[in-house]
């Protein structure tokens, strides 16, 4: 079992003819991902890594039955491409694209919510259901199959935590990068809810970082709804103040929220152990599970 993605999920790669799209398609295929189509407007009819390319996502859905999309679309084309993807009936969109304007994220988020589509990101490292499939840019050698779910703001730290767990004999069920942009498409508690329900996951690791209030909200959710153990790591204890948490965040949430200290305190208050370093997650997991 897993969440959101498995070996049968029919994946379309948008922006497949770009440099990153092309290279990552090859890695995803090697991992076993069921990539059925690629999309780049104006490039229909080409073949990339053996995958047929279409001009529109609607064609990829109609002709290849695509049901989930991974995005390597550059920011200026992002909004239109996303709205078309949602209109084509795709219900899961993983957005690897960096530097998407916040207003575009807010527009797409509201549009998707009204139509029951789930987006992950932006600036997501992707989703990997270990041993089955991956959508995104995560390097496969970091992961081994197992029963730990990971939700991470940072892509690279999800790799670091995963490889350390893997070396200690703790495999992963699904690992998800939610991104660290000012507004995210899917909030942390929404993914915790999926892991709580997943019969293939016994414990969840949250990798958070300074800024925003995702971790504080996650702590509230864990306190009310989670029965599975959760452990956490927060990056940025020594981050210079105000570099990540802008003025706007302070207006909405009041002073003192969004700091690593407030996140760690929120987790500890609800019984979530917080690791001092990424690899110390292993020791905290060991308190709950045997490898």
């Amino acid at each position, binding site marked *: 079992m897993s969440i959101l993605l498995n070996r049968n999920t029919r994946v379309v790669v948008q922006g497949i003819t770009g440099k990153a799209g092309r290279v990552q398609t090859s890695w995803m295929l090697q991992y076993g991902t069921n990539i059925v189509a690629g999309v780049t407007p104006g490039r229909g009819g080409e073949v990339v890594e053996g995958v047929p390319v279409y001009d529109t996502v609607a064609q990829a859905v109609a002709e290849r039955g695509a049901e989930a999309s991974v995005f390597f679309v550059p920011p*200026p084309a992002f909004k239109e491409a996303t709205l078309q993807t949602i209109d084509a009936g795709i219900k899961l969109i993983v957005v690897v694209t*960096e530097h998407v304007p916040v207003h575009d994220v807010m527009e797409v988020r509201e549009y998707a919510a009204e139509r029951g589509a789930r987006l992950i990101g932006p600036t997501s490292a992707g989703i990997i259901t270990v041993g089955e499939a991956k959508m995104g840019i995560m390097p496969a*050698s970091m992961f081994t199959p197992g029963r730990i779910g990971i939700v991470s703001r940072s892509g690279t730290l999800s*790799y670091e935590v995963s490889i350390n767990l893997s070396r200690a004999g703790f495999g992963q069920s699904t690992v998800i990068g939610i991104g660290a942009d000012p507004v995210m498409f899917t909030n942390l508690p929404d993914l915790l809810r999926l892991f709580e329900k997943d019969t293939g996951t016994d414990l969840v690791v949250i990798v958070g970082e300074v800024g*925003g209030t995702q971790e504080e909200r996650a702590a509230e959710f864990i306190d009310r709804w989670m029965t599975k153990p959760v452990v956490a790591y927060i990056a940025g204890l020594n981050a210079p103040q105000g570099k990540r948490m802008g*003025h706007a965040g302070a*207006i909405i949430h009041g002073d003192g929220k969004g700091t690593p200290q407030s996140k760690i305190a929120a987790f500890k208050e609800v019984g979530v152990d917080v690791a001092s370093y990424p*690899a110390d997650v292993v020791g905290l997991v060991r308190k709950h599970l045997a490898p």
Partner: protein
Amino acid sequence: MKLYEFEGNELFRREGIPTPEYVLAATPQEARDKVQQVGLPAMVKAQVLAGGRYLAGGVRTVTSPDEAAAAARHILGMSIGGFPVRQVMLSRKTEAARELYAAITFDDYNGTPVAILSAEGGVAINKTARDRPETVVFRPVSILKGFTAADAQQMCRGVGLNGDDLEQVSGILTSLYALFRRYDALLAEINPLVRTAEGRYLAVDAKVEIDDSSLYRHADLHLNPLDRLTNPLERKGRELGVTYVELDGDIAIIASGAGLGMASMDIVSQKLRPANFLETGGAITADLLYNVMGLVLQKQGIRAVFINVYGGINPIHEGAKGIVRYMQEHNVTIPVVAKALGNHQEETWKIFRDNGVHVVTDVSTEGAVAELSRILEGRA
């Protein structure tokens, strides 16, 4: 990217939000010559990208051209929140009968714009919201449906405005929302929104922050983020397309990813002192890391370079070529310690090892930093 008050003012005018007349001055002489254009008494205000101008003494009231020159001389010599003051704004002093607060910003968690109106302006909204929450109205906005005149009017009633006050303030709120949307603002704030003795509302301060990711579609604003970075190394980083933050230590850090960069900084800080935070983003090339090595080594007194990279989206073997090329061309003799994992890791290790970089195969950053410490101790 934060805008200067005068730039915010300009956007307010474009949207029809009433602001006081103003002129800018970069010298005391200019302040003396120009103050009559706005009339006396006038305000002389420091133009800096930091809050707390009043507390720092960066805002003065003057009643004559000589006083304007003296105030400008004083303020132009100041540094506020680390920013040297290069310009002052001169504007006609407004007699405030009443001060309100208005802003549009966004809620990061719920992912919507939020309009804020308070009957009490002039102080930080966080403080008002905490001490007198009944005087503040927060209203989430559907970004697809927009913010209507009716929404604005309802907010005005919520803080006790009616009649002509409601007309004017609701108009300002809807214009502020239009500005927020048109220019991809993260914040558009008027504090204070002054009601004059004649019953006219004026935006006496303008605080606007534009989303950096949106600048490609606002070329008409002629905003260059580089102009706003006072630290030359941070500026250079921005030019290269990486995030560099200067710190006060002597261990240079190069990381691929913000989270990994912060974790590296946290771990290095335990025993050693980081010289910088640097994250490359997802577009590593040989040339980029060549330039990044030059950037982190530009700071004086660096004792070692710690490289912490993952091959996910980044071709780290390409990056490694740039790093060793820099080391060869510039005869780098301090320890360069690299932890590099993921796609192409073996190839990367080989390039590093063949060229004098100490490769750590420990998969934890703390293990790698411990190794770095041992190497430095061995040299001491």
